[in-house]
Protein backbone atom coordinates (compact mmCIF):
# COMPACT_ATOMS: atom_id res chain seq x y z
CA UNK A 1 0.00 0.00 0.00
CA UNK A 2 2.15 2.82 1.18
CA UNK A 3 5.86 3.03 1.18
CA UNK A 4 8.07 5.14 3.39
CA UNK A 5 11.49 5.55 1.86
CA UNK A 6 14.44 6.98 3.69
CA UNK A 7 15.56 10.41 2.60
CA UNK A 8 18.29 12.65 3.94
CA UNK A 9 17.18 15.11 6.55
CA UNK A 10 18.13 18.02 4.29
CA UNK A 11 16.37 16.79 1.18
CA UNK A 12 12.89 17.94 0.50
CA UNK A 13 9.95 16.01 1.76
CA UNK A 14 7.66 14.63 -0.89
CA UNK A 15 4.07 13.71 -0.22
CA UNK A 16 1.95 11.84 -2.74
CA UNK A 17 -1.36 10.48 -1.54
CA UNK A 18 -3.48 8.76 -4.14
CA UNK A 19 -6.32 7.86 -1.83
CA UNK A 20 -7.21 8.15 1.83
CA UNK A 21 -10.63 7.00 2.93
CA UNK A 22 -12.09 7.12 6.41
CA UNK A 23 -14.38 4.30 7.38
CA UNK A 24 -17.19 5.57 9.57
CA UNK A 25 -18.56 3.76 12.59
CA UNK A 26 -21.46 2.45 10.48
CA UNK A 27 -19.11 1.22 7.75
CA UNK A 28 -19.68 4.03 5.27
CA UNK A 29 -16.61 5.09 3.30
CA UNK A 30 -15.79 8.77 3.41
CA UNK A 31 -13.09 9.77 0.92
CA UNK A 32 -10.83 12.33 2.64
CA UNK A 33 -7.91 12.82 0.25
CA UNK A 34 -7.58 11.99 -3.45
CA UNK A 35 -4.57 12.52 -5.75
CA UNK A 36 -2.74 14.98 -3.57
CA UNK A 37 0.86 15.77 -4.51
CA UNK A 38 2.95 18.14 -2.45
CA UNK A 39 6.61 19.04 -2.25
CA UNK A 40 7.84 20.61 0.94
CA UNK A 41 11.02 22.63 0.53
CA UNK A 42 13.66 22.34 3.23
CA UNK A 43 13.83 25.10 5.83
CA UNK A 44 10.73 26.79 4.54
CA UNK A 45 7.25 27.27 5.93
CA UNK A 46 4.60 25.48 3.93
CA UNK A 47 1.09 26.46 4.91
CA UNK A 48 -1.82 24.24 3.94
CA UNK A 49 -5.04 26.20 3.78
CA UNK A 50 -8.45 24.72 3.16
CA UNK A 51 -12.01 24.81 4.40
CA UNK A 52 -12.90 23.15 7.71
CA UNK A 53 -13.26 19.41 7.43
CA UNK A 54 -11.40 19.12 4.13
CA UNK A 55 -8.90 16.62 5.47
CA UNK A 56 -6.03 18.89 6.53
CA UNK A 57 -5.57 17.22 9.89
CA UNK A 58 -5.78 13.78 8.24
CA UNK A 59 -2.99 14.84 5.88
CA UNK A 60 -0.83 16.07 8.74
CA UNK A 61 -1.38 12.86 10.70
CA UNK A 62 -0.22 10.85 7.68
CA UNK A 63 2.92 12.97 7.38
CA UNK A 64 3.59 12.58 11.11
CA UNK A 65 3.46 8.81 10.70
CA UNK A 66 0.38 8.49 12.91
CA UNK A 67 -1.78 6.99 10.17
CA UNK A 68 -0.41 4.38 7.79
CA UNK A 69 -3.68 3.37 6.19
CA UNK A 70 -3.56 5.21 2.89
CA UNK A 71 -2.55 4.61 -0.70
CA UNK A 72 0.49 6.61 -1.77
CA UNK A 73 3.97 7.54 -0.67
CA UNK A 74 5.27 9.89 1.97
CA UNK A 75 8.99 10.41 1.86
CA UNK A 76 9.68 11.17 5.47
CA UNK A 77 12.53 9.07 6.88
CA UNK A 78 11.70 6.86 9.85
CA UNK A 79 14.55 8.46 11.76
CA UNK A 80 13.45 12.03 11.07
CA UNK A 81 12.88 13.93 14.29
CA UNK A 82 9.41 15.42 14.31
CA UNK A 83 8.17 18.35 16.32
CA UNK A 84 4.42 18.61 16.41
CA UNK A 85 1.84 21.01 17.76
CA UNK A 86 -1.72 19.76 17.88
CA UNK A 87 -4.93 21.79 18.02
CA UNK A 88 -4.89 21.24 21.78
CA UNK A 89 -1.61 21.61 23.71
CA UNK A 90 -1.54 17.89 24.64
CA UNK A 91 0.92 18.37 27.48
CA UNK A 92 1.17 15.63 30.09
CA UNK A 93 -0.79 17.04 33.07
CA UNK A 94 1.24 14.97 35.58
CA UNK A 95 4.57 16.37 34.43
CA UNK A 96 5.80 19.91 34.91
CA UNK A 97 6.27 22.13 31.88
CA UNK A 98 10.01 21.52 32.12
CA UNK A 99 9.56 17.74 32.29
CA UNK A 100 7.17 17.89 29.34
CA UNK A 101 9.83 19.56 27.22
CA UNK A 102 12.67 17.35 28.47
CA UNK A 103 10.64 14.26 27.65
CA UNK A 104 10.96 14.83 23.89
CA UNK A 105 14.52 16.20 23.99
CA UNK A 106 16.55 13.98 26.28
CA UNK A 107 19.93 15.36 25.31
CA UNK A 108 18.97 19.00 25.70
CA UNK A 109 21.09 20.95 28.16
CA UNK A 110 19.48 22.94 30.93
CA UNK A 111 20.81 26.20 29.53
CA UNK A 112 19.34 25.48 26.11
CA UNK A 113 16.01 24.54 27.61
CA UNK A 114 15.88 27.77 29.56
CA UNK A 115 16.88 29.73 26.49
CA UNK A 116 14.05 28.14 24.50
CA UNK A 117 11.57 28.72 27.34
CA UNK A 118 12.41 32.38 27.57
CA UNK A 119 12.19 32.71 23.78
CA UNK A 120 8.53 31.68 23.98
CA UNK A 121 7.98 33.57 27.24
CA UNK A 122 7.42 30.71 29.67
CA UNK A 123 10.69 30.82 31.63
CA UNK A 124 8.77 31.36 34.90
CA UNK A 125 6.36 28.52 34.12
CA UNK A 126 8.91 25.69 33.89
CA UNK A 127 8.28 24.27 37.39
CA UNK A 128 4.48 24.55 37.04
CA UNK A 129 2.03 21.84 36.04
CA UNK A 130 0.10 22.39 32.79
CA UNK A 131 -3.24 22.72 34.61
CA UNK A 132 -1.95 25.88 36.24
CA UNK A 133 -1.43 27.47 32.83
CA UNK A 134 -3.89 29.43 30.71
CA UNK A 135 -4.55 28.08 27.23
CA UNK A 136 -2.29 30.74 25.74
CA UNK A 137 0.60 29.77 28.04
CA UNK A 138 -0.02 26.06 27.46
CA UNK A 139 0.23 26.71 23.71
CA UNK A 140 3.56 28.45 24.28
CA UNK A 141 4.76 25.41 26.20
CA UNK A 142 3.59 23.16 23.34
CA UNK A 143 5.45 25.43 20.90
CA UNK A 144 8.64 25.15 22.96
CA UNK A 145 8.22 21.39 23.07
CA UNK A 146 7.79 21.24 19.28
CA UNK A 147 11.14 23.00 18.79
CA UNK A 148 12.93 21.17 21.60
CA UNK A 149 14.03 18.01 19.72
CA UNK A 150 15.61 20.12 16.91
CA UNK A 151 13.08 18.64 14.52
CA UNK A 152 13.82 17.78 10.91
CA UNK A 153 10.17 18.42 10.30
CA UNK A 154 7.88 20.71 12.25
CA UNK A 155 4.15 19.99 11.99
CA UNK A 156 1.63 22.53 13.23
CA UNK A 157 -2.06 21.64 13.18
CA UNK A 158 -4.09 24.84 13.58
CA UNK A 159 -1.91 25.66 16.56
CA UNK A 160 -3.61 28.98 17.34
CA UNK A 161 -7.24 27.94 17.04
CA UNK A 162 -9.67 28.93 19.83
CA UNK A 163 -7.48 31.71 21.17
CA UNK A 164 -8.63 35.32 21.18
CA UNK A 165 -7.30 37.22 18.19
CA UNK A 166 -4.74 39.28 20.16
CA UNK A 167 -3.23 36.25 21.87
CA UNK A 168 -3.26 34.32 18.60
CA UNK A 169 -1.49 37.18 16.84
CA UNK A 170 1.18 37.41 19.53
CA UNK A 171 1.77 33.70 19.29
CA UNK A 172 2.05 33.83 15.49
CA UNK A 173 4.76 36.50 15.77
CA UNK A 174 6.42 34.39 18.45
CA UNK A 175 6.37 31.34 16.20
CA UNK A 176 7.99 33.38 13.43
CA UNK A 177 10.69 34.63 15.80
CA UNK A 178 11.61 31.19 17.10
CA UNK A 179 11.35 29.66 13.65
CA UNK A 180 13.54 32.35 12.03
CA UNK A 181 16.18 31.81 14.70
CA UNK A 182 16.37 28.11 13.84
CA UNK A 183 14.98 27.59 10.33
CA UNK A 184 13.18 24.28 10.20
CA UNK A 185 11.20 22.55 7.49
CA UNK A 186 7.67 23.27 8.61
CA UNK A 187 4.13 22.42 7.58
CA UNK A 188 1.34 24.43 9.14
CA UNK A 189 -2.34 23.72 8.63
CA UNK A 190 -4.98 26.42 9.00
CA UNK A 191 -8.33 27.62 7.71
CA UNK A 192 -7.53 31.22 8.60
CA UNK A 193 -6.41 33.08 5.43
CA UNK A 194 -4.67 35.96 7.24
CA UNK A 195 -2.74 33.54 9.41
CA UNK A 196 -1.74 31.63 6.26
CA UNK A 197 -0.60 34.79 4.48
CA UNK A 198 1.36 36.02 7.50
CA UNK A 199 3.33 32.80 7.95
CA UNK A 200 3.73 31.09 4.56
CA UNK A 201 6.75 30.86 2.28
CA UNK A 202 4.66 28.58 0.20
CA UNK A 203 0.90 28.75 0.48
CA UNK A 204 -0.90 25.58 -0.59
CA UNK A 205 -4.62 25.93 -1.29
CA UNK A 206 -6.64 22.78 -0.72
CA UNK A 207 -10.00 21.78 -2.19
CA UNK A 208 -12.96 20.59 -0.11
CA UNK A 209 -13.23 16.86 0.59
CA UNK A 210 -11.89 14.69 -0.96
CA UNK A 211 -9.07 17.16 -0.86
CA UNK A 212 -6.29 17.80 -3.36
CA UNK A 213 -4.01 20.72 -4.14
CA UNK A 214 -5.78 23.55 -5.97
CA UNK A 215 -2.80 25.89 -6.25
CA UNK A 216 0.61 26.57 -4.74
CA UNK A 217 1.21 30.26 -4.16
CA UNK A 218 4.74 31.32 -3.21
CA UNK A 219 4.91 34.49 -1.12
CA UNK A 220 8.23 36.23 -1.71
CA UNK A 221 8.06 39.06 0.85
CA UNK A 222 9.99 37.95 4.00
CA UNK A 223 7.68 37.18 6.92
CA UNK A 224 9.36 39.86 9.02
CA UNK A 225 8.15 42.57 6.64
CA UNK A 226 4.55 41.43 6.54
CA UNK A 227 2.69 43.92 8.70
CA UNK A 228 -1.09 44.25 8.72
CA UNK A 229 -1.13 46.39 5.54
CA UNK A 230 1.00 43.93 3.56
CA UNK A 231 -1.14 41.02 4.71
CA UNK A 232 -4.31 42.86 3.61
CA UNK A 233 -2.76 43.65 0.18
CA UNK A 234 -1.79 40.04 -0.42
CA UNK A 235 -5.20 38.96 0.82
CA UNK A 236 -7.02 41.30 -1.61
CA UNK A 237 -4.88 40.02 -4.46
CA UNK A 238 -5.48 36.35 -3.59
CA UNK A 239 -9.20 36.96 -3.12
CA UNK A 240 -9.34 38.12 -6.75
CA UNK A 241 -7.32 35.15 -8.03
CA UNK A 242 -8.89 32.40 -5.91
CA UNK A 243 -12.31 33.67 -4.84
CA UNK A 244 -13.54 30.20 -3.89
CA UNK A 245 -10.71 29.72 -1.39
CA UNK A 246 -10.61 33.17 0.16
CA UNK A 247 -14.22 34.34 0.05
CA UNK A 248 -15.17 33.05 3.50
CA UNK A 249 -12.17 34.51 5.34
Amino acid at each position, binding site marked *: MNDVRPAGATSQFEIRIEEKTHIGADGTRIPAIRDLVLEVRPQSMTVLMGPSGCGKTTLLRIV*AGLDARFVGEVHVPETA*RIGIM*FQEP*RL*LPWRTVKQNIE*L*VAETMSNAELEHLASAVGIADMLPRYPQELSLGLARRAALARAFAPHPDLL*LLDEPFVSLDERTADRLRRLLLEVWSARPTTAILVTHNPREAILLADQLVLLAPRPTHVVAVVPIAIPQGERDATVVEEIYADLLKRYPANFATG
Partner: protein
Amino acid sequence: MSVSAAPPDILTGVRSYRGPIVSVLSVAGFLLVWFIAAEIAQSRLLPGPVEVLRYVFDEALHGDLLAELGITLWRVTASFVVAMAIGSVVGLAMGESPALNRALDPWLIVLLNLPALVIIILAYVWFGLNEAAAIGAVALNKIPNAIVTMREGARALDPGLDEMARAYRLSPWSKLRNVTLPQLQPYFAVASRSGISLIWKIVLVVELLGRSNGVGFELHLNFQLFNVTAILGYTVAFVTVMLAIEYLLVQPLERRTTRWRNKPV
Protein backbone atom coordinates in the same frame (compact mmCIF):
# COMPACT_ATOMS: atom_id res chain seq x y z
CA MET B 1 2.72 32.22 73.23
CA SER B 2 3.67 31.92 69.64
CA VAL B 3 1.83 33.56 66.80
CA SER B 4 2.26 31.77 63.54
CA ALA B 5 1.00 32.54 60.08
CA ALA B 6 -2.26 30.94 59.05
CA PRO B 7 -1.58 27.39 57.91
CA PRO B 8 -1.73 27.00 54.15
CA ASP B 9 -4.76 24.74 54.46
CA ILE B 10 -6.85 27.63 55.71
CA LEU B 11 -5.60 29.93 52.99
CA THR B 12 -6.46 27.52 50.21
CA GLY B 13 -9.63 26.34 51.91
CA VAL B 14 -9.17 22.95 50.30
CA ARG B 15 -8.24 20.76 53.23
CA SER B 16 -9.79 22.63 56.14
CA TYR B 17 -11.95 19.67 57.11
CA ARG B 18 -9.54 16.91 56.21
CA GLY B 19 -7.49 17.11 59.38
CA PRO B 20 -7.03 14.06 61.61
CA ILE B 21 -9.29 15.59 64.27
CA VAL B 22 -12.48 14.66 62.44
CA SER B 23 -11.28 11.09 61.91
CA VAL B 24 -10.30 10.73 65.58
CA LEU B 25 -13.68 12.09 66.75
CA SER B 26 -15.44 9.68 64.44
CA VAL B 27 -13.59 6.69 65.91
CA ALA B 28 -14.18 7.96 69.45
CA GLY B 29 -17.91 8.18 68.72
CA PHE B 30 -17.94 4.55 67.61
CA LEU B 31 -16.13 3.43 70.79
CA LEU B 32 -18.63 5.35 72.88
CA VAL B 33 -21.62 3.65 71.24
CA TRP B 34 -19.96 0.26 71.72
CA PHE B 35 -19.23 1.04 75.37
CA ILE B 36 -22.84 2.07 76.10
CA ALA B 37 -24.26 -0.95 74.25
CA ALA B 38 -22.03 -3.30 76.25
CA GLU B 39 -22.99 -1.62 79.53
CA ILE B 40 -26.67 -2.06 78.76
CA ALA B 41 -26.32 -5.65 77.52
CA GLN B 42 -24.13 -6.80 80.42
CA SER B 43 -23.47 -10.06 78.58
CA ARG B 44 -20.48 -12.33 78.08
CA LEU B 45 -21.39 -12.27 74.39
CA LEU B 46 -20.88 -8.51 74.04
CA PRO B 47 -17.75 -7.43 75.91
CA GLY B 48 -17.09 -3.69 76.04
CA PRO B 49 -14.18 -1.88 74.40
CA VAL B 50 -12.13 -1.74 77.60
CA GLU B 51 -12.27 -5.49 78.09
CA VAL B 52 -11.43 -6.15 74.44
CA LEU B 53 -8.53 -3.69 74.42
CA ARG B 54 -7.16 -5.25 77.61
CA TYR B 55 -7.30 -8.65 75.89
CA VAL B 56 -5.49 -7.23 72.85
CA PHE B 57 -2.66 -5.76 74.97
CA ASP B 58 -2.35 -8.91 77.09
CA GLU B 59 -2.21 -11.13 74.01
CA ALA B 60 0.21 -8.78 72.26
CA LEU B 61 2.58 -8.72 75.24
CA HIS B 62 2.29 -12.29 76.51
CA GLY B 63 0.46 -14.23 73.79
CA ASP B 64 0.69 -14.97 70.08
CA LEU B 65 -1.30 -12.00 68.76
CA LEU B 66 1.60 -10.21 67.06
CA ALA B 67 2.90 -13.39 65.46
CA GLU B 68 -0.57 -14.31 64.18
CA LEU B 69 -1.10 -10.77 62.85
CA GLY B 70 2.28 -10.92 61.12
CA ILE B 71 1.49 -14.23 59.42
CA THR B 72 -1.90 -12.99 58.19
CA LEU B 73 -0.37 -9.71 57.03
CA TRP B 74 2.27 -11.61 55.07
CA ARG B 75 -0.45 -13.69 53.36
CA VAL B 76 -2.44 -10.53 52.56
CA THR B 77 0.66 -8.87 51.11
CA ALA B 78 1.70 -11.88 49.03
CA SER B 79 -1.82 -12.41 47.65
CA PHE B 80 -2.16 -8.70 46.95
CA VAL B 81 1.10 -8.46 45.02
CA VAL B 82 0.35 -11.58 42.98
CA ALA B 83 -3.24 -10.50 42.24
CA MET B 84 -2.38 -6.90 41.30
CA ALA B 85 0.56 -7.93 39.11
CA ILE B 86 -1.37 -10.52 37.13
CA GLY B 87 -4.59 -8.49 37.14
CA SER B 88 -2.88 -5.33 35.86
CA VAL B 89 -1.01 -7.02 33.04
CA VAL B 90 -4.00 -9.05 31.84
CA GLY B 91 -6.41 -6.12 32.31
CA LEU B 92 -4.19 -3.79 30.29
CA ALA B 93 -3.74 -6.34 27.53
CA MET B 94 -7.50 -6.93 27.37
CA GLY B 95 -8.20 -3.21 27.29
CA GLU B 96 -5.72 -2.65 24.46
CA SER B 97 -6.62 -5.65 22.32
CA PRO B 98 -10.27 -6.27 21.41
CA ALA B 99 -9.39 -9.74 20.08
CA LEU B 100 -7.78 -10.80 23.36
CA ASN B 101 -10.71 -9.28 25.22
CA ARG B 102 -13.17 -11.39 23.26
CA ALA B 103 -11.09 -14.52 23.88
CA LEU B 104 -10.68 -14.02 27.64
CA ASP B 105 -13.98 -12.40 28.49
CA PRO B 106 -15.92 -15.66 29.17
CA TRP B 107 -13.13 -16.81 31.51
CA LEU B 108 -13.27 -13.50 33.28
CA ILE B 109 -17.01 -13.72 33.81
CA VAL B 110 -16.75 -17.29 35.11
CA LEU B 111 -13.97 -16.32 37.50
CA LEU B 112 -15.87 -13.22 38.67
CA ASN B 113 -18.88 -15.33 39.58
CA LEU B 114 -17.10 -18.34 41.04
CA PRO B 115 -17.65 -18.26 44.83
CA ALA B 116 -14.51 -17.68 46.86
CA LEU B 117 -15.27 -20.79 48.89
CA VAL B 118 -15.26 -23.01 45.78
CA ILE B 119 -11.88 -21.69 44.67
CA ILE B 120 -10.42 -22.16 48.15
CA ILE B 121 -11.73 -25.70 48.57
CA LEU B 122 -10.57 -26.77 45.10
CA ALA B 123 -7.14 -25.20 45.66
CA TYR B 124 -6.71 -27.14 48.91
CA VAL B 125 -8.03 -30.38 47.37
CA TRP B 126 -5.84 -30.15 44.26
CA PHE B 127 -2.68 -28.56 45.62
CA GLY B 128 -2.74 -29.65 49.25
CA LEU B 129 -3.05 -27.73 52.50
CA ASN B 130 -0.02 -25.57 51.92
CA GLU B 131 0.96 -21.92 51.81
CA ALA B 132 1.13 -21.70 48.01
CA ALA B 133 -2.40 -23.08 47.61
CA ALA B 134 -3.68 -20.63 50.23
CA ILE B 135 -2.07 -17.57 48.68
CA GLY B 136 -2.92 -18.68 45.14
CA ALA B 137 -6.58 -19.21 46.06
CA VAL B 138 -6.83 -15.74 47.61
CA ALA B 139 -5.11 -14.09 44.65
CA LEU B 140 -7.37 -15.91 42.20
CA ASN B 141 -10.37 -14.40 43.96
CA LYS B 142 -9.03 -10.89 43.50
CA ILE B 143 -7.54 -11.19 39.99
CA PRO B 144 -10.83 -10.84 38.05
CA ASN B 145 -11.73 -7.62 39.92
CA ALA B 146 -8.30 -6.18 39.21
CA ILE B 147 -8.63 -7.15 35.55
CA VAL B 148 -12.03 -5.47 35.19
CA THR B 149 -10.81 -2.21 36.77
CA MET B 150 -7.52 -2.07 34.88
CA ARG B 151 -9.29 -2.91 31.62
CA GLU B 152 -11.50 0.13 32.12
CA GLY B 153 -8.34 2.16 32.69
CA ALA B 154 -6.77 0.91 29.49
CA ARG B 155 -9.92 1.75 27.56
CA ALA B 156 -9.96 5.26 28.98
CA LEU B 157 -6.41 6.06 27.86
CA ASP B 158 -6.30 9.41 26.05
CA PRO B 159 -5.72 8.80 22.30
CA GLY B 160 -4.45 12.38 21.97
CA LEU B 161 -1.56 11.75 24.34
CA ASP B 162 -0.88 8.45 22.60
CA GLU B 163 -0.53 10.30 19.28
CA MET B 164 1.75 12.82 20.93
CA ALA B 165 3.98 10.02 22.21
CA ARG B 166 4.09 8.33 18.81
CA ALA B 167 4.75 11.53 16.86
CA TYR B 168 7.67 12.38 19.15
CA ARG B 169 8.92 8.79 18.84
CA LEU B 170 9.05 8.13 22.58
CA SER B 171 10.64 4.79 23.45
CA PRO B 172 8.19 2.13 24.71
CA TRP B 173 9.65 2.40 28.22
CA SER B 174 9.43 6.19 28.28
CA LYS B 175 5.87 6.08 26.97
CA LEU B 176 4.85 3.54 29.62
CA ARG B 177 6.43 5.52 32.44
CA ASN B 178 5.40 9.02 31.40
CA VAL B 179 2.20 8.62 29.41
CA THR B 180 0.45 5.32 30.18
CA LEU B 181 1.06 4.57 33.87
CA PRO B 182 0.12 8.03 35.18
CA GLN B 183 -3.22 7.69 33.37
CA LEU B 184 -3.77 4.28 34.97
CA GLN B 185 -2.84 5.45 38.46
CA PRO B 186 -6.42 6.25 39.59
CA TYR B 187 -7.63 2.86 38.34
CA PHE B 188 -4.74 1.15 40.09
CA ALA B 189 -5.63 3.01 43.29
CA VAL B 190 -9.26 1.88 43.07
CA ALA B 191 -8.25 -1.72 42.37
CA SER B 192 -5.72 -1.68 45.23
CA ARG B 193 -8.09 -0.25 47.78
CA SER B 194 -10.99 -2.59 47.05
CA GLY B 195 -8.39 -5.33 46.65
CA ILE B 196 -6.83 -5.02 50.08
CA SER B 197 -10.17 -5.14 51.87
CA LEU B 198 -11.42 -8.07 49.79
CA ILE B 199 -8.16 -9.97 50.17
CA TRP B 200 -7.89 -9.74 53.91
CA LYS B 201 -11.42 -11.04 54.33
CA ILE B 202 -10.71 -14.00 52.07
CA VAL B 203 -7.36 -14.66 53.76
CA LEU B 204 -9.25 -15.26 57.00
CA VAL B 205 -11.45 -17.86 55.29
CA VAL B 206 -8.40 -19.58 53.84
CA GLU B 207 -6.78 -19.66 57.26
CA LEU B 208 -9.93 -20.96 58.86
CA LEU B 209 -10.24 -23.80 56.38
CA GLY B 210 -6.70 -25.00 55.97
CA ARG B 211 -3.99 -23.24 57.97
CA SER B 212 -2.89 -23.75 61.57
CA ASN B 213 -1.96 -20.15 62.28
CA GLY B 214 -3.02 -16.61 61.44
CA VAL B 215 -5.95 -14.46 62.50
CA GLY B 216 -8.46 -16.69 60.70
CA PHE B 217 -7.24 -19.76 62.59
CA GLU B 218 -7.45 -17.91 65.92
CA LEU B 219 -10.99 -16.74 65.16
CA HIS B 220 -12.00 -20.30 64.39
CA LEU B 221 -10.43 -21.56 67.62
CA ASN B 222 -12.10 -18.90 69.74
CA PHE B 223 -15.43 -19.45 68.02
CA GLN B 224 -15.29 -23.07 69.22
CA LEU B 225 -14.49 -21.80 72.73
CA PHE B 226 -17.25 -19.17 72.40
CA ASN B 227 -14.68 -16.54 73.42
CA VAL B 228 -16.24 -13.38 71.97
CA THR B 229 -13.66 -11.15 73.66
CA ALA B 230 -10.88 -12.89 71.75
CA ILE B 231 -12.82 -12.76 68.48
CA LEU B 232 -13.40 -9.02 68.82
CA GLY B 233 -9.83 -8.55 70.03
CA TYR B 234 -8.34 -10.16 66.93
CA THR B 235 -10.76 -8.26 64.72
CA VAL B 236 -9.91 -4.92 66.32
CA ALA B 237 -6.19 -5.64 66.12
CA PHE B 238 -6.26 -6.48 62.43
CA VAL B 239 -8.63 -3.66 61.51
CA THR B 240 -6.17 -1.32 63.26
CA VAL B 241 -3.38 -2.69 61.10
CA MET B 242 -5.46 -2.13 57.96
CA LEU B 243 -6.34 1.42 59.06
CA ALA B 244 -2.67 2.13 59.64
CA ILE B 245 -1.87 0.87 56.13
CA GLU B 246 -4.60 3.07 54.67
CA TYR B 247 -3.63 6.25 56.50
CA LEU B 248 0.13 5.85 56.71
CA LEU B 249 0.82 4.18 53.37
CA VAL B 250 -2.01 4.35 50.83
CA GLN B 251 -3.22 7.91 51.35
CA PRO B 252 0.19 9.64 51.55
CA LEU B 253 1.23 7.72 48.43
CA GLU B 254 -1.94 8.81 46.67
CA ARG B 255 -1.43 12.43 47.63
CA ARG B 256 2.08 12.27 46.24
CA THR B 257 1.08 10.77 42.90
CA THR B 258 -1.85 13.16 42.40
CA ARG B 259 -0.15 16.35 43.53
CA TRP B 260 -0.46 17.74 39.99
CA ARG B 261 -4.25 17.72 40.33
CA ASN B 262 -6.48 20.41 41.81
CA LYS B 263 -4.24 23.23 40.82
CA PRO B 264 -6.52 25.61 38.98
CA VAL B 265 -5.21 28.48 36.87
